């Protein structure tokens, strides 16, 4: 049973219902609308990003649906990423963050997790200057401001 999704830039994507429903947002929309052929508009997601998201959902179409465990301690989550996912996430940074935003909007928790783990791994252990370099960020602090923050947070650097 196919479903049509329309991106921000009006590109149509036809996918199996099972694949589309990896997105809880889309799943709920389908349930609300009932049986219908009309395409589902996704005005927050561009076609380039939607294409990637669909690729992820196709590959993971058989994964067990993650049940949100109340006792899930985030600190115990593993930092490991499957090889396919790692390759999938090897994209330029803009795309990386767009995928995260899309996964958040479309409510695809496993994809959001993979994206967040990827970013977390990039940032881990880096100095502020290294982080800026990786993401091309402009430092908008004055040297005095930055020195003050460093002093302020020194206690946290210990651990």
């Amino acid at each position: 049973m196919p479903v049509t999704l329309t991106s921000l830039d009006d590109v149509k994507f036809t996918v199996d219902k099972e694949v589309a429903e990896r997105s809880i947002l889309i799943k709920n929309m389908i349930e609300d609308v009932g049986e219908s052929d009309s395409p589902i508009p996704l005005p927050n997601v561009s076609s380039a990003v939607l294409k990637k998201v669909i690729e992820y959902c196709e590959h993971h179409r058989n994964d067990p649906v993650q049940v949100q465990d109340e006792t899930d301690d985030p600190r115990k989550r593993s930092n490991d990423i499957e090889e396919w996912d790692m390759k999938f996430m090897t994209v330029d940074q803009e795309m990386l963050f767009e995928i995260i935003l899309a996964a958040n909007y479309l409510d695809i928790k496993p994809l959001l997790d993979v994206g967040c783990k990827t970013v977390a791994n990039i940032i881990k252990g880096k100095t502020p200057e290294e982080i800026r370099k990786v993401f091309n960020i402009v430092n908008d602090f004055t040297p005095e401001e930055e020195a003050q923050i460093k002093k302020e947070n020194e206690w946290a650097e210990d651990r």
Partner: protein
Amino acid sequence: MDTTNSPLERVLEIPEIIERISAYQDRRTFASATRVSKSWYRAYLPILWHTIDNGKHWNDPGFLKAIVQHGDLIRVLVCARYDEIDILIPPPKGADALEQSVSLCRFLTTVVMPKTASRNQKQQAQFIRQNPGLRDLSLTFNDQLSSTFTELVDAIGDLKHLRRLSFDGNRSLEATTLETILQRCSSVSPDGNGSLQELSLSRTSFLRHPFGRGEDFASGVVATRGEDAHWTDTQNSHDTTIPTKEPFAITTLRMDKVGCVQDLLLNLCSRFPSLSKLSLSEADELYYSDGFPKRLAQRCPNIKWLDVSHTEDMDDESMAELISSFPGLQTFIAEETRFGTESLNALVEHCRDLAVLDITNAYEMDSAAMQRLLNSSWSLRSLNAWGVAYNVIEMMQEAHREQKRQGGSSTLTDGQPWVCTGLERLILNVIYSPPDDSRVGNVYPPSRARRFLYDQLGRLTKLRYLALETSLEDYEDTSDCDGYEDDEDYYGQKKEVRDHAVEDEDVDSNEVWVDYSFKSGLRRLGSLKELQQLSLHDVSHNITLAEIRWMAETWPHLRKIEYLTSAITDQDAQTILEYAAENYPWIQFVEDD
């Protein structure tokens, strides 16, 4: 370059996403992140300050300075030192004594307070008043009687959202204090405040404690015994009717590692008729008498979750009585106890809703009783019965008896099958041990027992985690753990198995046992489509590359196999791991947890 609307900037503006990213990072990374740029500072500052639980930080003058500015970002605060309260809320000085000091933190949801004493209880009271959003509060009352902490108790009573209150390890909590707090925070009346539902008194030794035996606390019935009785004497404990008092809304009571007499427990529980979860884990100084279970059930008939693990005082019979007093039981945790056949029978007979059972390392048990459990527990989702070996022959005999009882013919089939098809987690040891009467061994040879086990397992289509240890005992044709090494052909054949058709099940062989090989009947487990984790702890198996390939292809959710390589030779282990890493990278092979 204007980056204000870049995807990265947009991500930084969504706290939920930053929280998710930070779940995989450490505090040092948070500190680094705050220095990257102004938008990074805004995103990461609340993350950095969310949880403060490291006593060392209080020694750092930089920290003490910074907390003045950012204390309002703290949500979870764990205090260890005595004088931290002075830092968090300055003590009143001289003429300002009547003026309220301002706390550095006002939005805490969880706090573990430093030790309360008469010299700081006013400050602690003020601190609590300025954190009206508190949900989880832990107090240490060690030296002075709690009745001297009037301002503090008053402040706690005013909390509108308190959900959990802990007096773990206390030495001076009085019953009157508890009564006052519960009356204000755990009321069952519709216009009262019933937010407080969880109470913890773990690690408290109530023997010779100001709480007494709670006789003034009890409602409806009071448990008492003779005045001269020794504090551990339970023999004369009996119930006397008394006027009822207002009940409380407590649903969870934790009394782990406590030392107390049953009278205290009974009197405490008489005020908690809604109690559904009770933990008495490691409560080795809890002295019971006969009749305790019925008396407890009379007070708290709704208990559904019970943990009595790591206790030795209750024998099998008493535990059975406890179980039969709570037919609504859904979770029963009795790891390392004297849980035995009577208790297992009691569960089968009384607890239709049983979903979670943990009887790891319990005492020896009747295998037929285990079969009865698997035969009748429709709701069972998780069973951990590690430590006792269940004899599959006796299980099969019981299965046939049950089938006869139900009027079925027992000639060809395996008897009454397991009904616990909702089982998601199974940890079990099974042995094949024929009795001296060889006729029994002939009716139930290993080949039949093996098929029985595989077939029953095959019914558990919701299974996610499987750890099944099986061994063949005292059977003359038995091969030992490394049996396959003796069989040259089989061993030689393994190396080429990658390219040839795999072996079919050898249905009639009494030499092959449940070792997860094709020959033994692995394919009968093809229906376990939800299986995520397989543990081969202590299991002698005959898994080769062919079996791994089959598992990866047949069990789409398989993500982890534990202890695979400990039972095979180094070379084979290497080959298998390399092959698996290349072809099935999503499956983790773990050797020790």
